[in-house]
């Protein structure tokens, strides 16, 4: 069964999570995906023993900076604890979780300071994970290109694709 924050959208390429959506699944056939990540950061967590995994499509680093509802996985500081809690509820253990990050690109070449949302999202994700004793197994962060990240629940395989380039496995 796959738990998502919103209506499930199954396609041959997997359950695509829109901005601020997250999903947890123990379905061996499920593929979770964050498509067209720019400055957004996607996190995947997978426990190979409990055979459960999850993903979140995070847009902004800090829920205290805005004035919109912090529901779902929109903010990194809300999404990571939420995803972890849901996975632990399904039998996942922190020490077994394989965690990957992708995204956080700087889409505008000459942006600076507060505009560098991609960099700030990546930094916030590292902080939130470290605070929960989770280390990042592999990541594809930064740069100036959009990415698509997928997690296959059955195998725990995590891939990142950039248009026109070869798929990489994290």
């Amino acid at each position, binding site marked *: 069964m796959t738990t998502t924050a919103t209506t499930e959208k199954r396609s041959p390429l997997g359950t*695509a999570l*829109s*901005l*601020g*959506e997250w999903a947890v699944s123990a379905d061996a056939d499920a593929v979770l995906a964050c*498509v*067209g*990540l*720019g*400055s*957004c950061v996607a996190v995947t967590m997978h426990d190979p023993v409990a055979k459960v995994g999850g993903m979140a499509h995070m*847009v*902004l680093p800090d829920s205290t*900076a*805005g*004035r*919109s*509802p912090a529901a779902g996985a*929109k903010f990194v500081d809300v999404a990571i604890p939420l995803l972890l809690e849901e996975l632990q509820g399904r039998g996942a253990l922190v020490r077994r979780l394989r965690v990957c990050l992708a995204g956080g*690109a700087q*889409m*505008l*070449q000459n942006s600076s300071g507060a505009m560098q*949302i*991609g960099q700030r999202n990546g930094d916030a994700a590292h902080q939130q994970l470290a605070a929960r004793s989770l280390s990042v197994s592999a990541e594809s962060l930064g740069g100036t*290109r*959009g*990415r*698509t990240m997928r997690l296959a629940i059955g195998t725990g395989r995590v891939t990142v694709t950039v*248009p026109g380039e070869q798929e990489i496995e994290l």
Partner: protein
Amino acid sequence: MSDPAMQKWADLVSLGTANAMTGLSQMIGQAIEVREFALEQVPVASISQHVGGAEAQSVGIYLTVTGAADGHLMLIYEPRIAFAFVDLLMMQAPDTTTEMTPMAASALGEMGNVIGAFFLNAIADATGLSLRPSPPTVMTDMAGALLDVVTADILLYSDDTYLADTTFATADRDISGAFFVIPSQGLLDAILSNQIASAA
């Protein structure tokens, strides 16, 4: 946004878009007919579905706005539409441009300059706000990645935004495309508070 505020914003975007088309028309020396104009309230998370999906390769023309309010605007097109514009701007036969060359990017940047200036001028005239566009940035990537540039800012304030979708065409060749204006919340707030204040 309340209905009267929504109507005000729709009127302003309509005005701005008509003026942007006038500017574009002057730039290419041909009449441009606006065939359809729609302003929709849409969840930010679903914007990419209006431009062919998050993974669809797209061309974005991005401008920041400074002056009485800071904000940004983005025009986003499927590549075939963007290339059709390039051919039109450079007075080339249709389908001449098939990839994003530096010359094509430069032509689209010029188009962004004209559309941005004419769009903002119309809004400035109607509201009395001084709004200036930055030089445009032309980007090619997946629609989702391009849209992150504007959506992250919007999501700080709201889960919804307003998408202006304009379909237009020139008389002498088969070209039409969607013209999206995605304002930042700051720009929207400044424009609407000014409008409502001046109407009161």
